[in-house]
């Protein structure tokens, strides 16, 4: 099996699903001729033509809004938002329409739409190029939110997302696009949505993370006996895998890039406070970004959890 990076893995997923299903179309700013600013869609225009790979005007609201209309009509649009922050204009289309179309029409219309976007820190880009606001989308009923952490699961999860019957927000950690490679089968395969994975087994602390922070947590775990869970699907998350691990270890540390207040870590910790409190030896720790605006490049490494901050949380967890 070839070792490839995440950009190549996502590109494969898109190409193979477009090959397999003529209803899959790709649209976004610069996704065609330019192949996407991260080259994720490279080659798709040549292969599938401008009717299925569409370079669009600079209109995020309409990108998602048109996606909803296409999906209702029977296509399976994969919309690329160039950076996560630029999806904010489209939140109404996602929240008031994409997530509700099935419920509002009692199943007559559905919205099999994928909104892909790079997210998180990592490229030292300009302002608003480092967002990790996944919690906003996780709060919306009727949608799935997915974050891959390796080339392998990027491909498998994206294929599942495209085949899913409802809308999926698919967040691609920009820092991981080219920084890791893994073995990825050449043909199409799926990694199921809604399932987490024990990325590293351990006995003393359950660590829950996803995307970039998964790897940082692994790095920080040296010297601790951590069981590290790659959440992968953030909404709905895999309660069983999380619970089983915490029952075993009795300690939980959640690591995420987003600001702490009302981040997904809150939901995970609240879940544990409700369902696992009798198994917990000590406090559920969240290692997250501060209650502050995401800084520009010069300070962004101080903003997101560092290995040091994560280790400190492990140490504190081990006090109990």
């Amino acid at each position, binding site marked *: 099996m070839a070792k490839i990076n995440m950009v190549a893995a996502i590109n494969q997923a898109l190409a193979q699903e477009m090959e397999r299903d003529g209803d899959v179309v790709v649209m976004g700013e610069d996704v065609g001729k330019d192949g996407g600013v991260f080259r994720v869609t490279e080659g798709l225009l040549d292969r599938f033509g401008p009717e299925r790979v569409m370079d669009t005007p600079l209109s995020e609201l309409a990108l998602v809004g048109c996606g909803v209309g296409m999906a209702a009509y029977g296509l399976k649009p994969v919309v690329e938002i160039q950076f996560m922050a630029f999806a904010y204009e489209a939140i109404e289309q996602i929240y008031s329409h994409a997530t509700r179309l*099935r419920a509002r029409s009692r199943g007559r219309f559905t919205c099999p739409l994928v909104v892909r976007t790079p997210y998180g820190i990592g490229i030292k880009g300009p302002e608003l190029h480092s967002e990790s606001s996944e919690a906003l989308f996780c709060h919306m009923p009727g949608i799935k939110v997915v974050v891959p952490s390796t080339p392998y699961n990027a491909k498998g999860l994206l294929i599942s997302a495209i085949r899913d019957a409802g809308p999926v927000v698919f967040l691609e950690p920009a820092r991981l696009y080219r920084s890791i490679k893994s073995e990825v089968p050449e043909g199409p395969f799926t990694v199921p949505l809604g399932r987490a994975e024990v990325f590293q087994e351990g006995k003393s602390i359950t660590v829950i993370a996803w995307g970039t922070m998964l790897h940082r947590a692994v790095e920080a775990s040296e010297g601790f006996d951590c069981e590290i869970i790659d959440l992968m699907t953030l909404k709905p998350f895999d309660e069983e895998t999380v619970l089983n691990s915490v029952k075993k270890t009795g300690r939980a540390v959640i690591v995420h890039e987003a600001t702490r207040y009302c981040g997904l870590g809150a939901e995970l910790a609240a879940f544990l406070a409700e369902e696992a409190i009798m198994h917990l030896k000590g406090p559920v720790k969240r290692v997250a970004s501060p209650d502050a605006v995401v800084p520009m490049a010069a300070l962004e490494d101080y903003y997101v959890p560092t290995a040091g901050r994560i280790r400190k949380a492990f140490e504190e967890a081990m006090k109990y």
Partner: protein
Amino acid sequence: MADEIIERFEVRYLQAVDESGNADPILIASVSDEEIKRSFESIILTRTFNQRALSLQREGRIGTYASVFGQEASQVGSALALEKDDWVFPSFRETGVFLTMGYPIWQMFRYWAGDERGMKIPPGLNILPMSVPVGTQIPHAAGAAWAMKIKGRRAAAVCYFGDGGSSRGDFHEGLNMAGVFNLPAVFICQNNQWAISVPRRSQSAAKTIAQRAFSYGFDGVQVDGNDAVGVYVATKAALEKAKNKGGPTLIECFTYRLDDHTTSDDASRYRSKEEVEEWKGREPLIRLRLLMRKMGLWTGEYEKAAIEKARALVDRAIEEEEAYPPPKPEDIILYTNAELTPRQFKELKEFGWRK
């Protein structure tokens, strides 16, 4: 060096039948007697539904309702031009469109009674559930039109919205997409001159809404929205154009909302009786009646029969609607996703909605 004119635009206004019932021979030429009768009867049906909905609301039998009184020509005239494969993207004030398309009347009542099943569109009818957030359905129509183009279907997407809706970002981005990709879409703005209490002139400083089409590189036309025939002709032309790869059209139907915004509104707070009375004199049925009389298509009995028929239909629908079992709480959860989430599974039990 230069100081020159590089582009010119003209806004066209169409009226096929004037207030006295005189028809423009060219514009009406392609319209059959049958079509004119269908307009008349559909307006009667819409109005009958509308009156009953208003009374049911007063009696607390349905919730807030948005009357279409005054705007029936815009809705019925345009809806009659639709073909089976066209798709419609309505706002919340499109009763006339739904009914003209043959939507089950009892479901319309169900919807206004606050029940999602009222918008479980029957198979074969291509109209989306009414969009409540103003203007947000516009990009959906562009998207469906795009899908039609991609799939090579001979069909068009038709979107309805109000003058208020034309101020939203969705309008701009949606119409611009339609222009760039030359999509088979028809955008119908019912300019009823009010967005709740905000008059048309305070909605935009532009003289017409039709002229906004120039921003997107396609045609816009203003039509007398109280002239069912004019609206029909304009819509039909736009649909034809769309299906022949001619791209989108923006049609502004210049009309008037004769009732309160909804049953929760009191329009006397912000507009004069005189204005309303003046527009009552221009309501669409009057001129259609005059036209049809001239054409020998109208008699008192004919109208009476049409009214009776509409009443019977609406009465039966109300009975059906009210006999329909109430929605089940578990439906709240069941229709959100294709499959239940772990949390939903638990919730169904927790709330006692499933064993």
